[in-house]
């Protein structure tokens, strides 16, 4: 009997120790989780022997959970979009990063250095994607082409974030995202061309695949996924540039495994891992020294040089975090309804 209780005691103290020997990553579910699991996490576990566990969920769900768990985070590392990262940072949920512990970060593109708290993990663009088979002769060289009368009732854009088209309208009106009001009239003129607004990636894919909205302001990675599924989509980078999007990585404040987290992030910026990510998602590596397959490198929205990054429309992530609610409200009141 004494031996039995000793065994129970040993198990009781052994289990928490095992639970601590893992790195917990918070990320979106589905292909995003798989992307990190198959690339960074695999190499991290091979090098350190530490398993990686994933907590998956939507952007807002994960943000709310971490806010509630402030000081005792559920995860050690969080992947989120650059402007949402600022909400974490402003609320004191992210650790300030010590770049000396992430040597591979020296190769990061300038646009991927979002803040002292979060750095770009990979990038993509929101740009014009269209079904040439359904549109005939319509060509897209400039964002201005979206305003063509023949596109009346043919366009879809994301309903969750109008920042891309708001920034574009401001630029076409001779302004920028910070002074977006100057683009309001331009944007109102686009209203007749909008047919619908998609609510998530699956909805975007369905609307393009069915031809319901043959033109979309679309996430490049999403478009490439659909092209891979046989949907004949043409993706273009307008002469003004596409709207850059950066997904970021950060260490949660209060993480007891910060050192492991730094190792993980350093592996994320390994040029080979970045090349692998670019290949799997057809997105842009965050570092400039990744050796990308030429077939991937030539795709619109994949950047391999600093000059390519700079040619895109880059909405400041902090500005976007502060303005999203205002933009979203204006868009709902004036364009969607």
């Amino acid at each position, binding site marked *: 009997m004494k031996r039995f209780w000793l065994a129970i005691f040993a198990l009781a103290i052994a289990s928490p120790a095992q639970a601590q020997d893992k790195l917990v990553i918070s990320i979106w579910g589905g292909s995003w989780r798989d992307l990190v699991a198959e690339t960074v996490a695999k190499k991290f576990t091979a090098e350190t022997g530490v398993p990686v566990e994933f907590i998956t969920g939507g952007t807002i769900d994960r943000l709310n959970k971490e806010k509630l768990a402030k000081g005792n985070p559920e995860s050690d590392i969080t992947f989120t979009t650059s402007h949402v990262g600022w909400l974490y940072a402003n609320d004191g949920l992210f650790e300030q990063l010590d770049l000396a512990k992430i040597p591979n970060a020296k190769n990061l593109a300038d646009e991927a250095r979002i803040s002292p708290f979060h750095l770009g993990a990979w990038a993509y663009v929101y740009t014009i994607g269209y079904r040439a088979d359904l549109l005939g002769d319509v060509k897209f060289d400039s964002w201005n082409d979206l305003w063509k009368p023949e596109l009346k009732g043919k366009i879809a854009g994301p309903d969750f974030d109008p920042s891309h088209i708001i920034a574009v309208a401001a630029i076409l009106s001779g302004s920028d995202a910070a002074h977006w009001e100057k683009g309001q009239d331009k944007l109102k003129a686009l209203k007749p061309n909008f047919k*619908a607004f998609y609510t998530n990636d699956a909805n975007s894919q369905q609307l393009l695949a069915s031809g319901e909205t043959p033109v979309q302001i679309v996430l490049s990675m999403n478009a490439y996924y659909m092209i891979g599924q046989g949907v004949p989509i043409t993706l273009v980078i307008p002469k003004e540039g596409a709207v850059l999007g950066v997904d970021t990585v950060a260490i949660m404040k209060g993480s007891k495994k910060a050192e492991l987290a730094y190792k993980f992030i350093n592996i994320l910026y390994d040029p080979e891992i970045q090349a692998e990510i670019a290949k799997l998602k057809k997105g842009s590596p965050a570092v400039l020294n990744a050796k990308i397959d030429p077939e991937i490198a030539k795709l619109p929205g994949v950047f391999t040089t600093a000059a390519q990054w700079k040619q895109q429309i880059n909405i400041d992530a902090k500005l976007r975090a502060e303005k999203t609610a*205002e933009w979203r409200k204006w868009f709902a009141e004036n364009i969607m309804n």
Partner: protein
Amino acid sequence: MLCAFGFLLALAAVLQFSLRAYVPGSLDPGGFTLANFTDLLKPLYARVFFDTVVICFLTAVSTLIVGYPLAYALVRTQSAVIKSVVLVIVVTPLFLGEVVRTYSWIIVLGNNGFINSVLLNLGIIRQPVQFMFTTFGVVVALVHVTMPVMVIMLAAGLSHIDRDYQRAAESLGAGPIRVFLTVTLPLSMPGVVAGVTTAFAWTFSAFATPQLIGGGRVNMISNLVYQLGFSSFNFPFAASLCVAGLALTIVVLSALRLVARPLENIGPH
């Protein structure tokens, strides 16, 4: 009791959030303000609130029209086959999530969907009819979502009707239509009222169906909560929309109850 306390706490949290200011770029709300509620007076929000009530009303009435024959067949038929078929039609939607059901309707209602393909192939139309992103499309899909609840309510009401009343009417020379209109229908009113009220309240909280079928062009209150609150982190404004939506539901359901009370009294006692 504990659950009720939990719900009350959650409601209190929503209420206090609705009275706080939104601070751009921050997750924490600011000081107390009524600005969120004054914003709701803008025409857009009044229109979405009105549209929500109209969509709920259309859905409840359409579900009643579709559900009544099914509930009647379910209760009155002697045939086990018909009963099983009706049961499958009625119960199957309950086993599918709202999102799956809604995606099925996208396939049916789309420009290249089932209905348009059939109409085009039969030469009835030359151009696809726009069902998606319209109130009609949203109501059709919501009727499917709401139907099981309606049929269950109606079947319960119909099964309480004493068949002797109908037999008595028949023995006095009334035909089947007259028996239905003067005996069965009035006696089934408690079920009808319960079904319509439940369908109305059920539809009020619909989210995925108007979100996907409406495509941002047909919006209900829940869609506004998502669009303006959650997707842009303006939780105080989202909370004020929730509070206003809840108040509107209470007002509309109370009014419905008041109007329906005389009808309920017609039912069997």
